């Protein structure tokens, strides 16, 4: 069990800056994010895009802002659980919470901050009947441990960079790799696409173009993928695994079941301190909503500062909070 003062769900720019505001008040933070890296949308969706409305930066690349935030919060030694999704929240007798992730990591904290942006990025699923029946039983949307596929038959579907990259990687690991793609050409990196065509020409992999996934079969575990090919004929492929790789899309996830008031995928908060209707749970950044809300990084930063001053009373119930400027006190590292 990880013990901390404040558990921040979402390691995007607002979640990261919240660590700084907490640190100024001597509160320690642990961050959880479903993505394998910090930065949220900035790192995942548009790392190289310039942002023009961060005060003090006429122009800053998204990834650069994330890197700077990581530098800024370093003195407060935040800890991270990345690549895991928050699943459960249980209230303890003293008012504190234990958060459990999908990988069963547990975090005990006095206060929970939801800084989840538009939710957690989950894999996009193709529309195939019975797909869900085979999840974890041959169907997987992510390659976490390539060794799982050693000497197995694997079908990958998709035409983006990750489908191409994993096809090349798994060609040397799996017994047989089949890549199924809807079009005749790939939009991914040309070098990578050329490598995939080479592998197919040399008989190292099976490449099926202009084909679509249609149906899955298997008794308890996936053993067949049925496709429709160019001529609309059904093709049956025996396989142990199917890995559909169609990118990521944001979902609110299990947070939706925590008893919070939710309006159009956003959590309603009280603008006095960005608290939700549930004791000791706050929501900041793109995931909250209130009259006049603007989904801007700079608004999230503001919310983080206000909200941490409110959370102080739960972490230090016996102390009086006195407001201090960093110009007066500096940044006192942990």
């Amino acid at each position, binding site marked *: 069990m990880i013990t901390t003062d404040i558990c921040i769900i979402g390691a995007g720019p607002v979640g990261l800056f919240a660590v700084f505001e907490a640190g100024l008040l001597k509160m320690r933070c642990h961050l959880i994010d479903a993505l394998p890296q910090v930065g949220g949308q900035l790192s995942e969706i548009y790392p190289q895009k310039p942002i023009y409305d961060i005060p003090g930066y006429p122009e800053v690349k998204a990834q650069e802002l994330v890197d700077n935030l990581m530098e800024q919060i370093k003195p407060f030694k935040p800890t991270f659980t990345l690549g895991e999704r928050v699943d459960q929240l249980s209230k303890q007798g003293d008012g504190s919470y234990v958060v459990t992730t999908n990988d069963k990591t547990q975090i005990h904290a006095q206060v929970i901050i939801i800084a989840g942006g538009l939710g957690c990025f989950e894999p996009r699923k193709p529309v195939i009947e019975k797909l869900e029946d085979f999840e974890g039983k041959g169907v997987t949307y992510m390659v976490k441990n390539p060794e799982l596929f050693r000497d197995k038959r694997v079908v990958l579907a998709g035409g983006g960079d990750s489908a191409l990259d994993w096809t090349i990687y798994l060609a040397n690991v799996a017994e047989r790799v089949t890549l199924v793609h809807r079009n005749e050409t790939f*939009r991914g990196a040309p070098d990578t696409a050329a490598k995939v065509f080479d592998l197919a020409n040399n008989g190292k992999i099976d490449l099926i173009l202009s084909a679509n996934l249609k149906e899955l079969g298997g008794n308890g575990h996936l053993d067949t993928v049925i496709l429709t090919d160019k001529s609309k004929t059904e093709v049956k492929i025996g396989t142990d695994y199917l890995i559909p790789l169609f990118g990521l*899309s*944001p979902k609110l996830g299990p947070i939706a079941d925590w008893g919070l008031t939710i309006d159009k995928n956003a959590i309603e908060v009280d603008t006095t301190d960005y608290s939700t209707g549930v004791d000791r749970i706050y929501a900041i950044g793109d995931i909250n909503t209130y009259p006049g809300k603007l989904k801007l990084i700079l608004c999230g930063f503001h919310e983080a500062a206000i909200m941490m001053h409110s959370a102080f009373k739960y972490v230090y119930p016996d102390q009086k909070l006195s407001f201090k400027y960093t110009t007066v006190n500096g940044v006192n590292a942990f």
Partner: protein
Amino acid sequence: MINFTIEDHQGNRQEVEAPADMGLSLMEILKAYEYPVLATCGGMALCATCHVEILEGKDRLGEATNVELDQLEALPEYFPTSRLACQIRIGDILDGAVIKLRGEDN
């Protein structure tokens, strides 16, 4: 004002009107009419959550850019009529078009 028709996920059609002189995108109009469009990336053609099909009037809209096609072609479902609403500016080219919502609505 430009008039066009929106078909939601349930197949209900509604005629909407939008100003042509404010530099708005189709995605912004869909949101203004409270259609369930996530538009995660805010209109940068980076998330494909504003995926729509142009059922009528696609040819007048011109070609999708490479950036837009990269997103569309990565989707599990993609049609010859697919576009990203955030990449379509409101203008005469949209007058009379019929647009079907395709992006994930939750």
